[in-house]
C-alpha cells in the first residue's frame, strides 16, 4: 500500500518534469520557456519530495529511527526549491529584458523602453 502511494507520487512528479522539458523545446522564446521551466519543475519536485518524505516517515514508523532524517532534510530542500526557483526565474527574465530580448508574438509590452 505504501509502495503504491510512493510510486503514484513519483509518477505524477516525473510526468510534470517531462512536461516541463517538452515545454522547453516547444515554446518560442526565453520568457515562455521560463514558464515551463519554473512552474512545472516546482510542481513536479513537490511530488517527488513528498514521495521521499513518506518513505522516510514510513521507515521511521516501522522502527528504523534514523530514517526520519530523510523526511526533515527533504522538507528543507523543498522549501529551498520553492523560494529559489521563482527568484532565479525572475533574475533570468529581468536580465533577458535588459539585454533587449523582445517577447515573441507579444500583444502588449508595458516594460518596453523603460530600462535601456
Amino acid at each position: 500500500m505504501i509502495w503504491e502511494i510512493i510510486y503514484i507520487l513519483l509518477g505524477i512528479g516525473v510526468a510534470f518534469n517531462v512536461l516541463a522539458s517538452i515545454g522547453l523545446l516547444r515554446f518560442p522564446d526565453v520568457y515562455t520557456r521560463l514558464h515551463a521551466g519554473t512552474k512545472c519543475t516546482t510542481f513536479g519536485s513537490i511530488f517527488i519530495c513528498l514521495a521521499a518524505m513518506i518513505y522516510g516517515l514510513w521507515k521511521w514508523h516501522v522502527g528504523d529511527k534514523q530514517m526520519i532524517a530523510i523526511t526533515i532534510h527533504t522538507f528543507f530542500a523543498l522549501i529551498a526549491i520553492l523560494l529559489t526557483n521563482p527568484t532565479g526565474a525572475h533574475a533570468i527574465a529581468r536580465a533577458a529584458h535588459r539585454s533587449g530580448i523582445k517577447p515573441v508574438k507579444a500583444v502588449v509590452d508595458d516594460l518596453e523602453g523603460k530600462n535601456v
Partner: protein
Amino acid sequence: MLAFIASTVFCFVMWLLLTFNGNFWQTDELVAGIVMACIAGFASRKILVKDFKLANPKRWLFILAYLPRFFYEMAKANFDVAYRVLTGRINPGIVKISPGLKSDVAITTLANSITLTPGTLSVDVDEEKNLYIHWINVKEEVLKKMPRDYKPICSNFPDWARRIGE
C-alpha cells in the same frame, strides 16, 4: 543585539533539525551547535533580520491561511501550462500592475507567488513598486484601461501579501 539573538536562535533550531537522527542529540553535538549558531548568527544578523514585523504571530497565521489557497492556484497553474505546452496556444505579453505595496517582504511574497501561479512570471519591479509581469495568455479586457486591473492576472494575492508583509 536583538537581531543577533533572533538569528542565533533561528540558526540553532535549523542545526537541531538538520542533525536530528531519531535519538536525542549528544552533548558534543549541542555544544558544537551553539558555537556554530553564534558565529552564523553574528555573520547573518543584518541579512536575516531587517525588522521585527514577522515576529507578530498574526502574520504567521495569515501565512498559514494563505498556503492552501496558494497551492490550489498553483495546481491550477500547472494544468494550464501543461495544456499550453501540449497545444502551443499562447498569447503572450508584458503587463504592468500597481499593487500599492510598500514593504520588501510584501513585494517579494507577491512576486514569488505570481511567478508560481497561472501563466504569469514577474519580470521587473521599479522604484514605485510596480510589477511588470509576463503573461502567457493575455485577456482582452485587461488591455483596455491603463492602470491595469490586477484581479484577472493574480486574483487577490496583493491583498494577502499586504496582510502578510505590510
